[in-house]
């Protein structure tokens, strides 16, 4: 059996107690464990104490206050069953694309938002990795993906963050200095080595989704080897709003799995704005996405393939989002 290293474990009864426990040296937050337990088994993470957030973070979707506050402890199993309006349909779509049902039953929104970056040279057993010198992310000084490179290019491949960023969600974060809110996009540094812009002992409490225009739609598209279990080769989330003239009034386009953080592509958004999402506009947006992607040789697919299919993902997501926006506009008029 693949076993975890000896570790302490605690389940603080409240948020304050959890933040205090996470302030201890060697402490690490544990939610569903569907990524962290693998890391422990692979010995890529070696915390001295696991701090279960089960009683510290809210679970479920709170509809008070106009939009929706999705608690960090909400499971992806519950989130994929959310009958969301067209404007935020990308969120359950992204939840449904993560791993497989028996993983989504325990995987949480908080764990997905705080997922570590990944690399074929890093997410391996200790035995596998022992065949090469440790890379930067494993505490060494080399990179096996980009030899001679000066930084880590591990991939950010969590599926919810692009969808949440595309619909303009914010995250509520709590730590030793109290609570703060920031845009989902600002939760990420874009650095493979330390992808999260969180201070020590900070925890994500919820993803707060605003109520959006009834004439808007969103979608998430993920390209991968199999329709279950696999991380994205590339993904895209798109939100579009239809204007009075029937053309696209505003758009947000966010890519996943083609860099060390989610990538917002302003040029793709400009290509969609003012268009009817006709093939030429979609192609221009796809082209902008391909240019913005920065894949390197550290995933199951070649960088050229990932760059190519991120454009496909943008086109599919944009078309579906637009159908939803137009459908919603017709339903309301």
């Amino acid at each position: 059996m693949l076993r975890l290293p000896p570790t302490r474990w605690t389940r603080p009864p409240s948020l304050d107690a959890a933040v205090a426990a996470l302030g201890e040296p060697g402490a690490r937050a544990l939610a569903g464990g569907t990524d962290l337990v693998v890391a422990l088994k692979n010995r890529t993470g070696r915390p001295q104490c696991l701090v279960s957030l089960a009683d510290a973070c809210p679970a479920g979707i709170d509809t008070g206050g106009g939009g929706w506050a999705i608690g960090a402890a909400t499971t992806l199993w519950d989130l994929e069953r959310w009958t969301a309006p067209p404007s935020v349909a990308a969120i359950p779509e992204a939840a449904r694309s993560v791993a497989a049902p028996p993983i989504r039953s325990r995987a949480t929104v908080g764990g997905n938002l705080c997922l570590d970056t990944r690399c074929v040279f890093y997410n391996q057993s200790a035995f596998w990795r022992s065949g090469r010198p440790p890379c930067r992310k494993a505490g060494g000084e080399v990179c096996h993906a980009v030899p001679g490179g000066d930084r880590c290019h591990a991939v950010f491949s969590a599926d919810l963050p692009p969808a949440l960023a595309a619909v303009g969600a914010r995250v509520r974060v709590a730590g030793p200095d109290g609570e703060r809110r920031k845009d989902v996009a600002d939760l990420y540094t874009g650095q493979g080595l330390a992808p999260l812009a969180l201070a020590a002992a900070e925890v994500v409490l919820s993803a707060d989704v605003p109520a959006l225009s009834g004439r808007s739609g969103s979608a998430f598209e993920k390209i991968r080897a199999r329709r279950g279990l696999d991380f994205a080769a590339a993904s895209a989330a798109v939100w579009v709003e239809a204007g009075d003239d029937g053309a696209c009034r505003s758009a947000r386009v966010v890519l996943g799995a083609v860099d060390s953080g989610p990538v917002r592509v302003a040029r793709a958004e400009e290509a969609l704005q003012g268009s009817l999402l006709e093939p030429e506009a979609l192609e221009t947006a796809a082209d902008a996405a391909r240019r913005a992607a920065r894949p390197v040789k550290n995933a199951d697919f070649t960088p050229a393939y990932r760059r190519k299919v991120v454009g496909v993902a943008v086109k599919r997501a944009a078309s579906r989002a637009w159908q939803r926006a137009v459908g919603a506009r017709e339903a309301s008029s």
Partner: protein
Amino acid sequence: MSTPRKIVLALTVNGQDHDLLVEPRRTLLEVLREELGLTGAKEGCGTGGCGTCTVLIDGRPARACLTLAADVQGASVLTIEGLADALDGDLHPIQRAFVDAHGIQCGFCTPGMILTAKALLDENPSPDEAEIRQALSGQVCRCTGYAKIVDSVQLAARRLAGEEETP
């Protein structure tokens, strides 16, 4: 570092209550197989990618290899051993359907397949093929090619709905 303290774990497995003293690093799979002698759930990969360790935790399928036992305090766990009739040993209709529709070859994936299928049919008694494939998308089988497994779940659904007799 001080030695991690063991924790007292109260768990209901296949309807039986257990109080166990376990190290917090133990997974549910280790507890089932090594403490309780229930070897129906298998370790294929140990890292979430194959599904052979899948059991039902409070009715939902979950990877026992990724679940810390400490995190399922008070939960009710169903393993393949708990599915057949406890009194007369008769197979559960889903098990029977996997036998009759040839959904089993080497059998290594079967406990996870059957339990995942049970969770699906409990929530959605008449799933279409796409829904079955989606529900089983995390369960890897190296033998059957999946067609017979989908047939088995469809047969089980018809029998559970009373549309077809069990011979």
